[in-house]
């Protein structure tokens, strides 16, 4: 796997996209950003709070990372499209992490509304990165309408359950013609490594880092895990075997005394 992640022609040196939600303050976010070595972060749009001090944009600017606005909180294609328009105005970018939620307890996507919104936004020249289920057919439909990547979930947002259905993910990966980003579900570093090993091009991770007891250490951990997974995925892992394969050669094994291998010995038994 090449070191670079390329989405819509843009090159990213890191395969970790950081969600900024959940950090207790901007200072910890800034340190986690540095530890993660990410090059793109998500942000949301909410009603202006005159009392709020400091803008997250300043934090992201100082870190020199790209901004990826999301449409979090939208339950219909219409709201998501409006939110995307506002995001383009607010951030001067046509990139959008498209979220259209169908249920407020699991925050799982609504397939029908999501596809409709994606189609509309692609027609309006947005670079659409949809947060989707692990349904391989829906993932291809999203690619077919022109999404720049597909971002299936491993498990619900913030659930930390990792990849609940590696089979579905592997089918998505097998068919995908655009980058596949695992979005949601990562609970710890090994989940991220596994996603890359399975063939994901990147991981989008928020809560696992922002809500860890030590967000900066976890940011570093997920950063290393993503690199490890990408390397391992490209290194040609050994197959899974039912029986052992000795790592020490049998040839040249000394024999110290007949008595040393009793009758019950399996080596003999099987010889």
């Amino acid at each position, binding site marked *: 796997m090449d070191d670079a992640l390329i989405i819509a022609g843009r090159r990213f040196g890191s395969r970790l996209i950081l969600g900024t*939600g959940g950090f207790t303050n901007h200072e910890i976010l800034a340190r986690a950003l540095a530890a993660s070595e990410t090059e793109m972060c998500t942000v*949301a*749009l909410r*009603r*202006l709070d005159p009392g709020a001090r400091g803008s997250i*944009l300043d934090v992201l600017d100082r870190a020199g990372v790209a901004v990826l*606005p999301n449409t*979090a909180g939208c339950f219909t294609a219409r709201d998501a499209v409006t939110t995307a328009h506002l995001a383009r105005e*607010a951030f001067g970018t046509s990139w959008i992490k498209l979220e259209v939620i169908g249920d407020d307890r699991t925050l799982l996507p609504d397939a029908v509304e999501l596809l409709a919104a994606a189609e509309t936004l692609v027609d309006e020249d947005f670079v659409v990165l949809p947060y989707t289920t692990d349904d391989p057919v829906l993932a291809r439909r999203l690619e077919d309408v022109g999404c720049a990547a597909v971002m299936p979930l491993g498990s619900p947002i913030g659930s930390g359950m990792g990849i609940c259905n590696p089979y579905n993910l592997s089918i998505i990966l097998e068919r995908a013609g655009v980058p596949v980003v695992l979005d949601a579900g990562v609970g710890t570093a090994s989940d991220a490594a596994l996603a890359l090993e399975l063939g994901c091009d990147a991981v989008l991770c928020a809560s696992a880092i922002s809500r860890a007891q030590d967000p900066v250490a976890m940011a570093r951990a997920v950063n290393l895990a993503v690199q490890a997974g990408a390397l391992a995925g490209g290194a040609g892992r050994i197959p899974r075997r039912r029986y052992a394969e000795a790592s020490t050669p049998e040839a040249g094994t000394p024999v110290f005394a007949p008595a040393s291998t009793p009758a019950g010995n399996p080596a003999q038994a099987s010889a």
Partner: protein
Amino acid sequence: MRLMVNGQERALPDGATVQALVCELGMAEGGRGVAVAVDGEVVPRSQWPESALRPGARVEVLTAVQGG
């Protein structure tokens, strides 16, 4: 005149523009990271100075926050 700003009623001088509202809300000039919708329609920043607000309008003034 009275209108709804971010879900709360608010009084503004008649003919106040989006620009005026945004400034009153304390946006730095340029106001990067801010976007406005009036009655569900986005108002491009370039049109803030001209676009006058109507009484009873539902205005959403949004800004960047941490998010997933």
